[in-house]
């Protein structure tokens, strides 16, 4: 268990605050993502946990024991660097063996034990055939595996990874994600990794720690962090959104003459900005355009892999531009054509009374006839 308590850190003698009283707990066996934009302090926090950097305030407990007094080499923490930091003058084998060879005399395993251990790790990483190569002769994915093997050689209980897939091609990245998740589970590790890629965090982590400007914004399971953002930053960072002007009074919201309601009253605001995710816009078939809440002209249809983006110019909304996200099959099923008018519904609107507060959600409601 890693207990991170009120960690504060600033650079340049307090002039540049990096972390402000960040605290959370990582349980044994968990895989936790530190997610945030660049400059949010996530890497600094990881380095503090590793002991590469010291905190100005707060403390870190490993299984209830304070870590500050321990030096880095006594912490039993494996660290994988963003650019791997492999020793370029050593072969893959010697890189992996390094942690074992620098152990104090009394704890250092014999030559044979070291060889067996390193070979076992190389096999686990599926890179046995590379043991005599030098880092400069490896691909990005292979270097990543060597870096992992090297970190795991000292049998750490905790594994820390700084942007583990940042320098890799998209397809290698996907493959390594799955593989790393399996490795984490099979070895019974407790892991924390840093990423700026929300998809990566959602894909791999048990829980996501969302950081912004050195402040902890939200810590939650991936599905919750997506569905129940803690504040405006969390909402914005975790996906695209459209912005619309609406009139709000109490539990009622009006947009282009249509009413939405929430189970929670909002303060009177008119006009106010509300937000909606592109996938909360649902186009209707051309035949049932009469039943649609809203209509607009399709400006563009962007084919981008697993989802399709529609650019819609609406008739009576402000601003008039909307981006919708639909499954590829919908384009032909619904008969959507560039330049034509289409009708659509909005499933959910999100309203923030203040940037720090959780949002109020509004859904379409049909007034009693």
């Amino acid at each position, binding site marked *: 268990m890693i207990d991170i308590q009120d960690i504060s850190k600033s650079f340049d003698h307090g002039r540049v605050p990096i972390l402000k009283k960040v605290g959370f707990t990582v349980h044994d066996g968990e895989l936790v993502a530190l997610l945030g934009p660049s400059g949010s302090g996530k890497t600094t926090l990881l380095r503090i946990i*590793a002991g*590469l950097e010291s905190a100005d305030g707060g403390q870190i407990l490993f299984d209830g024991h304070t870590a500050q007094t321990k030096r880095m080499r006594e912490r039993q923490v494996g660290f994988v660097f963003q650019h791997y930091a492999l020793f370029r003058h050593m072969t893959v084998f010697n890189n992996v063996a390094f942690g074992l060879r*620098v152990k104090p005399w009394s704890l250092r395993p014999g030559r044979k034990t070291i060889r067996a251990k390193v070979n076992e790790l190389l096999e686990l990483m599926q890179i046995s055939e590379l043991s005599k190569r030098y880092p400069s002769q490896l691909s990005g994915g292979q270097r990543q595996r060597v870096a992992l093997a090297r970190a795991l050689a000292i049998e750490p209980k905790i594994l820390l990874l700084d942007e583990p897939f940042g320098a890799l091609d998209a397809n290698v990245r996907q493959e390594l994600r799955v593989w790393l998740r399996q490795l984490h589970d099979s070895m019974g590790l407790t892991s924390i990794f840093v990423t700026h890629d929300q998809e990566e965090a959602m894909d791999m982590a048990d829980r996501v720690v969302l950081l912004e400007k050195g402040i902890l914004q939200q810590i939650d399971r991936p599905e919750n962090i997506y569905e129940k953002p803690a504040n405006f930053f969390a909402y914005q960072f975790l996906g695209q959104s459209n912005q619309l002007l609406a009139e709000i009074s109490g539990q009622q919201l009006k947009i282009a003459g249509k009413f939405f309601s929430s189970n929670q009253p909002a303060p009177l605001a008119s006009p106010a900005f509300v937000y909606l995710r592109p996938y909360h816009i649902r186009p209707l078939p051309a035949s049932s355009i009469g039943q649609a809440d809203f209509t607009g002209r399709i400006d563009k249809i962007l084919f981008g892999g697993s989802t399709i983006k529609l650019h819609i110019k609406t008739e009576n909304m402000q601003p008039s531009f909307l981006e919708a996200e639909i499954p590829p099959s919908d384009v032909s099923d619904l008969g959507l054509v560039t330049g034509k008018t289409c009708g659509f519904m909005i499933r959910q609107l999100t309203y923030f009374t203040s940037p720090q507060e959780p949002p109020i959600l509004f859904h379409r409601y049909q007034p009693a006839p």
Partner: protein
Amino acid sequence: MGRFFLIALAVIFLTILLVIPILFILVEAFGEGFGVYWQILTSQETLNATKLTLLVAFITIIINIIIGLSGAWAISKFHFRGKTFLTTLIELPFSISPVVVGFLFILLFGRNGWFGRWLEQMDIQIAFAVPGIVLVTIFVTFPFIIRELVPLMQEQGKDDEEAALSLGAKGWQIFFRVTLPNIKWGLIYGITLCLARATGEFGAVTIISGNIRGQTDTLTLHIKNLYDGYYSTQAFAVSSLLLLLALVTLVLKSLLEWSSRAKPENNLALKAKKS
């Protein structure tokens, strides 16, 4: 055609500036036969001068390695106030005439200098003695190693050291197993330059040494003395000794490079050094 012209130009240039003078030294050195040549080289004065030159070069290189490594480490791996100033300061010895350096040290350590009286009381002789020669030689040569190391270490960053730390290595293990192999070639190159300059230094040494025959004569001073005394054959003979020293250094360096070129990681280090 253009290529041929350029190569020819380079060959002619090198012949006039390097090959002919070197051949001239050898021809002149053996001008009175091998017997005389050998006699000059084994004379007490030459032996003393050789010993002194090698001693000064040795101390200088050791001290420059220590200054170079710690200085380059500080500049490249830490942030501190006045870093830019320090980096500029390192270049200073290159832009000051060695003669001025010699006078500077006399001014500081000579009998009437700033520390002269105090040194006399402590019975320490710096000016007109071996310590003075060592000091000015260090002053003149200390940029060589540090200048090679700073860009190399800056480029490599702290990542490797931190990785070693995270794997449990202690400070000295990190230095000898990670840092030193990474900067090996830069260091060797710096040492070669430093050695060449230390054995060849004349201006600063001639001022600070006081030119005491058989005591504070380095090889270069010895050559100048012989030449001034119209012993030109002798002067050339001793010059050939310095030449030999330079060649041995070069050959050693090439051998080292050649013997490790087979390994790919050294090729990489070499490339890093040259870029």
